[in-house]
């Protein structure tokens, strides 16, 4: 019944307001140093200059960005190679994150209707697979999709390959790059890349959707059902509208997460369809050794990620207000 029950009022009533601010400042300093300076350094160095054989030097040049967007040789020649890598990064990430959310949504909805105990067991399993390193996940799918074992072998042994050949679907798969003359093949392909990526974030999708769906009041759907709405109608008229914003928010977060995925792309994507994240690695520590250009690409990745994160944050805020 107290009009204002702020924690501040309670705590300040116990202690006089003579706090030691240096503790807070020290904490701010540590966090600033560890969590913020790395990003600032990346931004600053992206304006630097490569020195042949001696690393790089401070500078203030837009050459690295110019090289990213139109190529180093502009105006004589325009190279869109780096933009194309960004395009592939976005392309894989969009499809994989949408796919993950679309399949994780019904799963999570069903999960939240389970008993608390069953939910706990599922969550343990999902968290374990969520924390699994990208190298391990790629390892698993590598075995599953490689030509010598896994799915292609299963296709051949089970006769599915022959059936595909008879029905003519095999030719379609070849056109899509999912088959060689003898059998189906998934490595390397966009299909394998997107599949593995969406597997990679699927547990994250469940975890992100879980709060919104578990707070869904079951009496809402029950009310709709008493008014004559069938299951499909309940889904489209009651559940989807209430979780629309968290759903979009989840897609955006997963998208940001996938922008930086590296191993999946290196192993499953064709060499011509590599992404910016791979290029950053190549520039900073790989064969080309051009730290400023690597930093510039990282900044572009950073800006893209930050923009989508901000959008996700905005959507989450809005869904909380409602």
């Amino acid at each position: 019944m107290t009009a204002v029950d702020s924690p501040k009022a309670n705590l300040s009533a116990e202690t006089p307001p003579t706090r030691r601010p240096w503790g807070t400042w020290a904490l701010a300093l540590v966090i600033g140093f560890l969590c913020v300076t790395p990003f600032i350094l990346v931004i600053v160095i992206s304006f630097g200059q490569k020195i042949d054989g001696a690393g790089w030097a401070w500078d203030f040049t837009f050459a690295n960005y110019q090289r990213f967007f139109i190529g180093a040789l502009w105006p004589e020649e325009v190279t869109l190679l780096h933009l194309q890598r960004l395009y592939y990064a976005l392309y894989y990430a969009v499809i994989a994150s949408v796919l993950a959310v679309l399949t994780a949504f019904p799963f999570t909805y069903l999960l939240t209707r389970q008993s608390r105990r069953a939910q706990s067991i599922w969550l343990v399993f999902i968290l374990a697979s969520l924390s699994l390193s990208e190298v391990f996940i790629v390892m698993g799918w590598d075995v599953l999709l490689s030509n010598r074992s896994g799915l292609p072998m299963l296709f051949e042994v089970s006769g599915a390959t022959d059936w595909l050949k008879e029905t003519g679907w095999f030719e379609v798969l070849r056109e899509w790059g999912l088959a060689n003359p003898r059998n189906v093949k998934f490595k390397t392909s966009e299909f394998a890349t997107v599949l593995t990526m969406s597997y990679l974030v699927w547990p994250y999708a469940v975890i992100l959707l879980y709060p919104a769906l578990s707070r869904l009041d079951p009496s809402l759907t029950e009310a709709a059902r008493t008014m004559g709405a069938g299951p499909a109608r309940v889904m489209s008229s009651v559940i989807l509208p209430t979780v629309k914003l968290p759903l979009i928010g989840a897609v955006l977060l997963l998208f940001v997460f996938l922008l930086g995925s590296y191993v999946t792309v290196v192993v499953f994507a064709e060499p011509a369809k590599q992404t910016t994240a791979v290029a950053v690695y190549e520039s900073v520590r790989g064969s080309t050794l051009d730290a400023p250009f690597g930093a510039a690409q990282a900044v572009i990745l950073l800006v893209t990620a930050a923009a989508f994160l901000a959008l996700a944050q905005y959507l989450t805020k809005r869904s909380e207000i409602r």
Partner: protein
Amino acid sequence: MAGLSLKYIRKSYGDVRAVENVSLDFTDGGLTALLGPSGCGKTTLLRMIAGLEDPSAGSISLGGRDITRLPAHKRKFGMVFQSFALFPHLNVSDNVSYALTIAGTPRGQAAARARELLDLVQLSAFAERRIGELSGGQRQRVAIARALAQEPDVFLLDEPMSALDAKLREDMQVELRQLQQRLGITTIVVTHDQHEAMTMADSIVVMSQGRVEQMGTPQAIYHHPENAFVADFIGKANFFDGVTEGGNVRIGQHLLQVTPPANFIDGSPVRMAVRPEKAMLAGADDGNRLPAKVTFVRDVGPVQDIHLDTPIGRMIVSDSESGQPLRVGDALQVTLPADAIHVFPRLSDQAAA
């Protein structure tokens, strides 16, 4: 010690005045109830007494010493919270001895004191239980024992019965009152339940909108309400709006006799209150007789509540004696004894009840 006194206490949150100019002297060793509807500022007042909130203005003193700026942990007034606020990570005994443990009392001594207090609230057998294993009534006893463990100067209870079910509530009211009388500790109870206040309190402070409306013994407050709010909030009352005329009250064509005469200038707008059990259906020639028609009869066993339509307005009469069978539509006479009529000034913003 004790001798708790509040002087011109005010509390505002921004523009909202939660408590306004409250001055009170609490009876030593007595139980005072702060009574009022929710949002009237009674809990805020209690929290200021405990030291959990700072008053915006005014002073609090204990035994002549100013304690206004003394933080809660130095006042150490024992307090029972609405939710009981028992620590789930400690067992019953450790909850009770908490104040002693953090004050550095030796373990054995603290445990002995906890046993003593659990004895007092008849929970000795539950000392090792976890809080989650207790019923609501048991939790309340633990909360009371815990607040008393530090032998506080003042014992505070914030809506102590609200988490209990109705049956248990009445038993606990009697029990708490007996315990308080045995210990003779100055006690303040916040409640919105007038029965609770009247069952337990030596004196009642009726509050509304941050102000003290009236302070007095339960009997004084019931029989001599000082204003319309108190008359309405304590017990039931029938209200009629009228104007004064020679110390009496005129409502339409009817002039109602009032003793003692109301002390108002003629023509003042007033509100008049009559308790349902004071109005009579039969006998008594002296008084104001009005024709009435029965509109509804509510028979709850020992008492009949009879709803009436009268020329001065609708009213309810509680009849426990006549026992005459009445039916809707019956016409009869109702008597309002002159000494049963309370007259209060009527503020312009008050609508007829």
